[in-house]
Protein backbone atom coordinates (compact mmCIF):
# COMPACT_ATOMS: atom_id res chain seq x y z
CA UNK A 1 0.00 0.00 0.00
CA UNK A 2 2.60 2.46 1.12
CA UNK A 3 4.75 1.61 -1.86
CA UNK A 4 1.88 2.25 -4.17
CA UNK A 5 1.41 5.75 -2.78
CA UNK A 6 5.13 6.43 -2.58
CA UNK A 7 5.48 5.60 -6.25
CA UNK A 8 2.66 7.94 -7.14
CA UNK A 9 4.10 10.73 -5.00
CA UNK A 10 7.49 10.37 -6.62
CA UNK A 11 5.75 10.77 -9.94
CA UNK A 12 5.37 14.35 -8.73
CA UNK A 13 9.00 14.86 -7.87
CA UNK A 14 9.43 17.80 -10.30
CA UNK A 15 6.72 19.66 -8.36
CA UNK A 16 8.35 18.83 -5.03
CA UNK A 17 11.75 19.92 -6.31
CA UNK A 18 10.35 23.12 -7.69
CA UNK A 19 8.64 23.80 -4.38
CA UNK A 20 11.83 23.16 -2.47
CA UNK A 21 13.74 25.48 -4.81
CA UNK A 22 11.15 28.18 -4.26
CA UNK A 23 11.31 27.79 -0.48
CA UNK A 24 15.09 28.11 -0.54
CA UNK A 25 15.11 31.01 -3.02
CA UNK A 26 12.38 32.95 -1.25
CA UNK A 27 14.02 32.44 2.14
CA UNK A 28 17.50 33.37 0.98
CA UNK A 29 16.41 36.54 -0.79
CA UNK A 30 14.28 37.63 2.16
CA UNK A 31 17.09 36.76 4.52
CA UNK A 32 19.58 39.02 2.77
CA UNK A 33 17.16 41.94 2.59
CA UNK A 34 15.86 41.32 6.12
CA UNK A 35 19.35 41.24 7.62
CA UNK A 36 20.38 44.44 5.85
CA UNK A 37 17.29 46.36 6.96
CA UNK A 38 17.29 44.67 10.37
CA UNK A 39 20.78 45.97 11.20
CA UNK A 40 19.66 49.46 10.20
CA UNK A 41 16.61 49.10 12.45
CA UNK A 42 18.75 47.84 15.31
CA UNK A 43 21.14 50.79 15.10
CA UNK A 44 18.23 53.23 15.19
CA UNK A 45 16.52 51.34 18.03
CA UNK A 46 19.66 51.39 20.17
CA UNK A 47 20.62 54.88 19.02
CA UNK A 48 20.56 58.21 20.77
CA UNK A 49 17.62 59.69 18.92
CA UNK A 50 14.81 58.80 21.31
CA UNK A 51 12.00 59.81 19.01
CA UNK A 52 13.24 57.87 16.03
CA UNK A 53 13.75 54.84 18.29
CA UNK A 54 10.25 55.09 19.66
CA UNK A 55 8.54 55.60 16.31
CA UNK A 56 10.40 52.64 14.87
CA UNK A 57 9.51 50.67 18.00
CA UNK A 58 5.81 51.13 17.26
CA UNK A 59 6.28 49.98 13.67
CA UNK A 60 8.24 46.93 14.82
CA UNK A 61 5.68 46.15 17.51
CA UNK A 62 2.92 46.04 14.92
CA UNK A 63 4.72 43.33 12.96
CA UNK A 64 5.67 41.42 16.08
CA UNK A 65 2.08 41.54 17.29
CA UNK A 66 0.20 40.35 14.21
CA UNK A 67 0.29 36.88 12.65
CA UNK A 68 2.48 36.53 9.60
CA UNK A 69 -0.51 35.26 7.62
CA UNK A 70 -2.26 38.58 8.27
CA UNK A 71 0.88 40.44 7.17
CA UNK A 72 1.01 38.46 3.96
CA UNK A 73 -2.63 39.39 3.30
CA UNK A 74 -1.86 43.03 4.07
CA UNK A 75 0.94 43.11 1.54
CA UNK A 76 -0.97 41.14 -1.04
CA UNK A 77 -4.40 42.79 -0.70
CA UNK A 78 -3.84 46.25 0.75
CA UNK A 79 -0.78 47.45 -1.15
CA UNK A 80 -2.64 47.12 -4.49
CA UNK A 81 -5.25 49.52 -3.09
CA UNK A 82 -2.58 52.19 -2.78
CA UNK A 83 -1.35 51.42 -6.29
CA UNK A 84 1.40 48.87 -5.60
CA UNK A 85 0.68 45.67 -7.50
CA UNK A 86 2.89 42.78 -6.46
CA UNK A 87 3.22 39.25 -7.75
CA UNK A 88 2.80 36.50 -5.17
CA UNK A 89 6.57 36.08 -5.12
CA UNK A 90 7.29 39.79 -4.67
CA UNK A 91 4.60 40.02 -1.99
CA UNK A 92 6.18 37.06 -0.23
CA UNK A 93 9.62 38.65 -0.30
CA UNK A 94 8.29 41.99 0.96
CA UNK A 95 6.30 40.42 3.79
CA UNK A 96 9.02 37.98 4.83
CA UNK A 97 11.93 40.40 4.72
CA UNK A 98 9.93 43.07 6.51
CA UNK A 99 9.04 40.71 9.32
CA UNK A 100 12.58 39.38 9.53
CA UNK A 101 13.89 42.95 9.69
CA UNK A 102 11.59 43.72 12.62
CA UNK A 103 12.69 40.70 14.64
CA UNK A 104 16.36 41.06 13.71
CA UNK A 105 16.18 44.78 14.51
CA UNK A 106 15.23 44.02 18.10
CA UNK A 107 17.94 41.37 18.36
CA UNK A 108 20.60 43.75 17.01
CA UNK A 109 19.46 46.52 19.36
CA UNK A 110 19.71 44.15 22.33
CA UNK A 111 23.17 43.07 21.16
CA UNK A 112 24.38 46.65 20.85
CA UNK A 113 23.13 47.44 24.34
CA UNK A 114 24.88 44.35 25.70
CA UNK A 115 28.31 45.65 24.71
CA UNK A 116 29.79 47.22 27.87
CA UNK A 117 29.73 51.04 27.77
CA UNK A 118 33.46 51.09 28.56
CA UNK A 119 34.07 49.86 25.02
CA UNK A 120 32.57 52.88 23.31
CA UNK A 121 34.23 55.12 25.91
CA UNK A 122 37.61 53.68 25.07
CA UNK A 123 36.90 54.25 21.38
CA UNK A 124 35.66 57.76 22.10
CA UNK A 125 38.76 58.53 24.16
CA UNK A 126 40.98 57.61 21.23
CA UNK A 127 39.26 60.15 19.02
CA UNK A 128 37.06 57.91 16.88
CA UNK A 129 33.91 59.33 15.33
CA UNK A 130 30.54 57.80 16.23
CA UNK A 131 30.51 55.91 12.96
CA UNK A 132 34.00 54.50 13.54
CA UNK A 133 33.08 53.46 17.08
CA UNK A 134 30.09 51.57 15.75
CA UNK A 135 31.90 49.97 12.82
CA UNK A 136 35.22 49.08 14.46
CA UNK A 137 34.43 48.47 18.11
CA UNK A 138 30.79 48.08 19.09
CA UNK A 139 29.18 46.31 16.12
CA UNK A 140 31.78 43.51 15.80
CA UNK A 141 31.22 42.64 19.45
CA UNK A 142 27.44 42.87 19.16
CA UNK A 143 27.52 40.56 16.15
CA UNK A 144 29.35 37.94 18.19
CA UNK A 145 26.78 38.16 20.94
CA UNK A 146 23.79 37.84 18.64
CA UNK A 147 25.01 35.30 16.08
CA UNK A 148 23.25 32.32 17.71
CA UNK A 149 19.92 34.14 17.87
CA UNK A 150 20.39 35.38 14.32
CA UNK A 151 20.82 31.82 13.09
CA UNK A 152 17.72 30.88 15.11
CA UNK A 153 15.91 33.69 13.35
CA UNK A 154 16.91 32.27 9.95
CA UNK A 155 15.24 29.01 10.88
CA UNK A 156 12.05 30.86 11.81
CA UNK A 157 12.18 32.72 8.51
CA UNK A 158 12.45 29.52 6.48
CA UNK A 159 9.54 28.01 8.35
CA UNK A 160 7.44 31.17 8.06
CA UNK A 161 8.02 31.18 4.32
CA UNK A 162 5.56 28.27 4.20
CA UNK A 163 2.75 30.70 5.03
CA UNK A 164 3.25 32.43 1.68
CA UNK A 165 1.70 29.32 0.10
CA UNK A 166 -1.61 30.79 1.28
CA UNK A 167 -1.50 33.35 -1.55
CA UNK A 168 -0.74 30.63 -4.07
CA UNK A 169 3.04 30.73 -4.29
CA UNK A 170 4.31 27.28 -5.20
CA UNK A 171 6.74 26.56 -2.38
CA UNK A 172 7.43 23.26 -0.64
CA UNK A 173 4.25 23.38 1.44
CA UNK A 174 2.12 24.33 -1.55
CA UNK A 175 3.59 21.49 -3.60
CA UNK A 176 2.49 19.09 -0.87
CA UNK A 177 -0.94 20.67 -0.86
CA UNK A 178 -1.20 20.18 -4.64
CA UNK A 179 -0.02 16.58 -4.56
CA UNK A 180 -2.36 15.60 -1.74
CA UNK A 181 -5.31 16.60 -3.95
CA UNK A 182 -4.57 13.68 -6.26
CA UNK A 183 -2.68 11.32 -3.96
CA UNK A 184 -4.93 11.17 -0.91
CA UNK A 185 -2.37 10.17 1.68
CA UNK A 186 -1.66 13.23 3.83
CA UNK A 187 0.67 11.45 6.24
CA UNK A 188 2.98 10.36 3.46
CA UNK A 189 2.83 13.54 1.38
CA UNK A 190 3.37 15.93 4.27
CA UNK A 191 5.80 13.51 5.84
CA UNK A 192 7.95 13.98 2.75
CA UNK A 193 7.39 17.73 2.79
CA UNK A 194 8.47 17.72 6.43
CA UNK A 195 11.65 15.85 5.54
CA UNK A 196 12.37 18.57 2.98
CA UNK A 197 12.15 21.29 5.62
CA UNK A 198 14.08 19.19 8.11
CA UNK A 199 16.99 18.87 5.68
CA UNK A 200 17.19 22.65 5.38
CA UNK A 201 16.45 23.65 8.97
CA UNK A 202 18.04 21.01 11.14
CA UNK A 203 21.67 21.84 10.33
CA UNK A 204 20.90 25.48 11.13
CA UNK A 205 19.30 24.57 14.46
CA UNK A 206 22.35 22.50 15.25
CA UNK A 207 24.65 25.35 14.29
CA UNK A 208 22.73 27.80 16.45
CA UNK A 209 23.03 25.52 19.48
CA UNK A 210 26.75 25.06 18.92
CA UNK A 211 27.34 28.77 18.54
CA UNK A 212 25.41 29.37 21.72
CA UNK A 213 27.54 26.92 23.66
CA UNK A 214 30.71 28.41 22.22
CA UNK A 215 29.48 31.93 23.00
CA UNK A 216 29.02 31.02 26.63
CA UNK A 217 32.58 29.76 26.78
CA UNK A 218 34.22 32.80 25.17
CA UNK A 219 34.97 36.10 26.91
CA UNK A 220 35.46 34.41 30.26
Amino acid at each position, binding site marked *: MVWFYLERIFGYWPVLLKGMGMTIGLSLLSLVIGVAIGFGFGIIRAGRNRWAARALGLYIDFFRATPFLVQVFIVFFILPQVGIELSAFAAGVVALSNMAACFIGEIVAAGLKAVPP*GQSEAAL*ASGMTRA*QQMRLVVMPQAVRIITPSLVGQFVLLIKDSSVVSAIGLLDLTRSGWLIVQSVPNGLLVFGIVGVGYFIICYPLIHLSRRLERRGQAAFL
Partner: protein
Amino acid sequence: MIEFSGVNKWFGSLHVLRDISLTVARGEVVVVCGPSGSGKSTLIRCINGLEPFQSGRLLVDGTDLADRKALLRLRTEVGFVFQSFNLYPHKTALENVTLAPIHVRRLSRAQAEERGRALLEKVGLADKMDSYPHQLSGGQQQRVAIARSLCMQPKIMLFDEPTSALDPEMINEVLDVMVGLAREGMTMMVVTHEMGFARKVADRVIFMDRGAIVETAPPETFFTAPAHARTRDFLSKILHQ
Protein backbone atom coordinates in the same frame (compact mmCIF):
# COMPACT_ATOMS: atom_id res chain seq x y z
CA MET B 1 48.55 72.46 29.30
CA ILE B 2 45.36 71.86 31.34
CA GLU B 3 43.54 74.81 32.84
CA PHE B 4 40.33 74.54 34.87
CA SER B 5 38.75 77.82 35.92
CA GLY B 6 35.62 77.76 38.02
CA VAL B 7 34.32 74.45 36.61
CA ASN B 8 31.07 73.13 38.08
CA LYS B 9 29.24 69.94 37.26
CA TRP B 10 26.03 68.38 38.46
CA PHE B 11 24.53 64.92 37.97
CA GLY B 12 20.91 65.93 38.32
CA SER B 13 20.85 67.61 41.70
CA LEU B 14 24.16 66.09 42.84
CA HIS B 15 26.92 68.68 42.75
CA VAL B 16 29.92 66.52 41.76
CA LEU B 17 32.48 69.19 40.83
CA ARG B 18 32.51 72.37 42.91
CA ASP B 19 34.21 75.38 41.49
CA ILE B 20 37.33 73.58 40.32
CA SER B 21 40.32 75.76 39.43
CA LEU B 22 43.56 74.05 38.61
CA THR B 23 46.46 74.46 36.22
CA VAL B 24 48.73 71.65 35.08
CA ALA B 25 51.89 72.68 33.25
CA ARG B 26 53.59 70.83 30.40
CA GLY B 27 55.60 67.89 31.69
CA GLU B 28 54.00 68.01 35.10
CA VAL B 29 52.81 64.86 36.89
CA VAL B 30 49.80 65.39 39.13
CA VAL B 31 48.36 62.69 41.36
CA VAL B 32 44.72 62.98 42.46
CA CYS B 33 43.43 61.17 45.53
CA GLY B 34 40.40 61.31 47.76
CA PRO B 35 37.60 59.18 49.17
CA SER B 36 35.26 57.18 46.95
CA GLY B 37 32.60 59.32 45.29
CA SER B 38 34.56 62.55 45.75
CA GLY B 39 34.59 63.26 41.99
CA LYS B 40 38.12 62.21 40.99
CA SER B 41 37.00 60.20 37.97
CA THR B 42 34.60 62.89 36.92
CA LEU B 43 37.39 65.48 37.11
CA ILE B 44 39.76 63.72 34.76
CA ARG B 45 36.99 62.46 32.47
CA CYS B 46 36.13 66.11 31.82
CA ILE B 47 39.59 66.71 30.40
CA ASN B 48 38.96 64.67 27.26
CA GLY B 49 35.28 65.44 27.10
CA LEU B 50 33.99 62.06 28.30
CA GLU B 51 31.86 64.10 30.72
CA PRO B 52 30.30 67.45 29.86
CA PHE B 53 30.14 70.14 32.56
CA GLN B 54 27.69 72.94 33.16
CA SER B 55 29.67 76.03 34.06
CA GLY B 56 33.22 77.35 34.08
CA ARG B 57 35.98 77.06 31.54
CA LEU B 58 38.38 74.27 30.70
CA LEU B 59 41.30 74.73 28.33
CA VAL B 60 43.34 71.73 27.23
CA ASP B 61 46.40 72.35 25.09
CA GLY B 62 44.90 75.70 24.12
CA THR B 63 41.55 74.19 23.05
CA ASP B 64 38.36 75.24 24.83
CA LEU B 65 36.35 72.15 25.80
CA ALA B 66 33.16 74.10 25.14
CA ASP B 67 34.08 73.83 21.46
CA ARG B 68 32.52 70.45 20.68
CA LYS B 69 33.91 70.46 17.16
CA ALA B 70 37.49 70.60 18.34
CA LEU B 71 36.78 67.76 20.75
CA LEU B 72 37.46 64.97 18.29
CA ARG B 73 40.90 66.33 17.46
CA LEU B 74 41.63 67.04 21.10
CA ARG B 75 40.89 63.43 22.09
CA THR B 76 43.60 62.25 19.75
CA GLU B 77 46.04 64.36 21.78
CA VAL B 78 44.90 63.08 25.16
CA GLY B 79 45.33 59.44 26.15
CA PHE B 80 43.04 57.85 28.72
CA VAL B 81 43.67 54.68 30.71
CA PHE B 82 40.65 53.11 32.42
CA GLN B 83 40.42 51.26 35.69
CA SER B 84 38.81 48.32 33.89
CA PHE B 85 41.22 48.41 30.88
CA ASN B 86 38.40 48.36 28.31
CA LEU B 87 40.51 46.52 25.77
CA TYR B 88 38.62 45.46 22.67
CA PRO B 89 37.99 41.74 23.26
CA HIS B 90 37.70 40.92 19.55
CA LYS B 91 41.15 42.31 18.70
CA THR B 92 44.64 41.05 19.51
CA ALA B 93 46.99 43.14 21.63
CA LEU B 94 48.67 44.57 18.55
CA GLU B 95 45.34 45.26 16.85
CA ASN B 96 44.10 47.02 19.99
CA VAL B 97 47.12 49.27 19.85
CA THR B 98 47.00 50.03 16.12
CA LEU B 99 43.23 50.44 15.63
CA ALA B 100 42.97 54.16 16.34
CA PRO B 101 46.28 55.12 14.65
CA ILE B 102 45.08 53.41 11.47
CA HIS B 103 41.52 54.75 11.45
CA VAL B 104 41.88 58.07 13.24
CA ARG B 105 45.45 59.12 12.47
CA ARG B 106 45.25 57.49 9.03
CA LEU B 107 48.64 55.82 9.35
CA SER B 108 49.36 52.97 6.99
CA ARG B 109 49.02 49.54 8.57
CA ALA B 110 52.78 48.98 8.30
CA GLN B 111 53.61 52.28 10.01
CA ALA B 112 51.05 51.71 12.74
CA GLU B 113 52.29 48.18 13.38
CA GLU B 114 55.87 49.30 13.56
CA ARG B 115 54.94 51.90 16.13
CA GLY B 116 52.67 49.46 17.95
CA ARG B 117 55.31 46.75 18.19
CA ALA B 118 57.83 49.21 19.57
CA LEU B 119 55.39 50.33 22.26
CA LEU B 120 54.35 46.82 23.24
CA GLU B 121 58.04 45.98 23.56
CA LYS B 122 58.53 49.06 25.69
CA VAL B 123 55.82 47.95 28.13
CA GLY B 124 57.37 44.49 28.23
CA LEU B 125 54.91 42.57 26.08
CA ALA B 126 57.03 41.70 23.06
CA ASP B 127 55.83 38.09 23.28
CA LYS B 128 52.13 38.91 23.60
CA MET B 129 51.50 40.86 20.39
CA ASP B 130 49.06 38.32 18.99
CA SER B 131 47.30 37.36 22.20
CA TYR B 132 43.68 38.28 22.76
CA PRO B 133 42.77 40.22 25.91
CA HIS B 134 41.17 37.21 27.61
CA GLN B 135 44.48 35.37 27.26
CA LEU B 136 46.31 38.08 29.22
CA SER B 137 46.56 38.73 32.95
CA GLY B 138 45.15 41.95 34.37
CA GLY B 139 48.55 43.59 34.59
CA GLN B 140 49.34 42.64 31.02
CA GLN B 141 45.98 43.95 29.84
CA GLN B 142 46.55 47.27 31.53
CA ARG B 143 49.99 47.57 29.94
CA VAL B 144 48.42 46.92 26.53
CA ALA B 145 45.91 49.66 27.34
CA ILE B 146 48.73 52.07 28.13
CA ALA B 147 50.49 51.18 24.89
CA ARG B 148 47.20 51.68 23.07
CA SER B 149 46.98 55.24 24.37
CA LEU B 150 50.64 55.98 23.71
CA CYS B 151 50.37 54.82 20.12
CA MET B 152 48.36 57.94 19.34
CA GLN B 153 51.42 59.94 20.53
CA PRO B 154 49.37 61.98 22.98
CA LYS B 155 50.58 65.17 24.64
CA ILE B 156 48.75 64.34 27.85
CA MET B 157 48.05 61.01 29.56
CA LEU B 158 45.16 60.55 32.00
CA PHE B 159 44.92 57.53 34.30
CA ASP B 160 41.81 56.62 36.29
CA GLU B 161 42.83 54.22 39.07
CA PRO B 162 44.88 52.12 36.63
CA THR B 163 45.97 49.60 39.26
CA SER B 164 42.96 49.24 41.53
CA ALA B 165 41.45 46.36 39.55
CA LEU B 166 44.74 44.43 39.71
CA ASP B 167 45.99 41.71 42.01
CA PRO B 168 48.75 43.09 44.29
CA GLU B 169 51.56 41.23 42.54
CA MET B 170 50.71 42.88 39.23
CA ILE B 171 50.49 46.44 40.43
CA ASN B 172 54.20 47.16 40.15
CA GLU B 173 54.58 46.04 36.56
CA VAL B 174 52.03 48.70 35.59
CA LEU B 175 53.41 51.36 37.92
CA ASP B 176 56.92 50.81 36.52
CA VAL B 177 55.66 51.63 33.04
CA MET B 178 54.00 54.77 34.39
CA VAL B 179 57.13 55.85 36.25
CA GLY B 180 59.12 55.45 33.05
CA LEU B 181 56.62 57.60 31.23
CA ALA B 182 56.77 60.31 33.89
CA ARG B 183 60.55 60.39 33.74
CA GLU B 184 60.39 60.88 29.98
CA GLY B 185 58.54 64.12 30.60
CA MET B 186 54.94 63.16 29.75
CA THR B 187 52.26 65.45 31.13
CA MET B 188 50.20 63.17 33.36
CA MET B 189 47.19 63.29 35.63
CA VAL B 190 46.80 60.13 37.66
CA VAL B 191 43.95 59.18 39.97
CA THR B 192 45.48 56.64 42.33
CA HIS B 193 45.93 55.67 45.92
CA GLU B 194 49.42 54.29 45.27
CA MET B 195 51.28 56.71 47.46
CA GLY B 196 54.63 55.15 46.63
CA PHE B 197 54.09 56.19 43.03
CA ALA B 198 53.13 59.69 44.16
CA ARG B 199 56.26 60.05 46.27
CA LYS B 200 58.47 58.84 43.46
CA VAL B 201 57.33 60.93 40.49
CA ALA B 202 54.52 63.35 41.35
CA ASP B 203 55.19 67.05 41.18
CA ARG B 204 51.99 67.73 43.08
CA VAL B 205 49.37 65.73 44.92
CA ILE B 206 45.75 66.89 44.98
CA PHE B 207 43.26 65.82 47.61
CA MET B 208 39.58 65.96 46.64
CA ASP B 209 36.57 65.64 48.88
CA ARG B 210 32.88 66.03 48.04
CA GLY B 211 33.57 67.50 44.62
CA ALA B 212 36.05 70.15 45.72
CA ILE B 213 39.84 70.36 45.69
CA VAL B 214 40.71 70.56 49.36
CA GLU B 215 44.47 70.56 49.24
CA THR B 216 47.28 70.79 46.69
CA ALA B 217 50.88 70.24 47.70
CA PRO B 218 54.18 68.72 46.57
CA PRO B 219 54.39 65.12 47.78
CA GLU B 220 56.90 65.70 50.54
CA THR B 221 54.67 68.34 52.18
CA PHE B 222 51.49 66.46 51.36
CA PHE B 223 52.54 63.31 53.19
CA THR B 224 54.46 64.84 56.08
CA ALA B 225 52.56 68.02 56.82
CA PRO B 226 49.09 68.12 55.30
CA ALA B 227 47.34 71.41 55.99
CA HIS B 228 43.79 70.15 56.37
CA ALA B 229 42.23 67.87 58.92
CA ARG B 230 40.28 66.00 56.23
CA THR B 231 43.50 65.25 54.37
CA ARG B 232 45.15 63.93 57.51
CA ASP B 233 42.12 61.83 58.24
CA PHE B 234 42.13 60.34 54.74
CA LEU B 235 45.88 59.70 54.77
CA SER B 236 45.74 57.91 58.07
CA LYS B 237 43.04 55.64 56.64
CA ILE B 238 44.78 54.64 53.44
CA LEU B 239 48.24 54.37 54.93
CA HIS B 240 47.00 51.91 57.52
CA GLN B 241 45.48 49.54 55.05
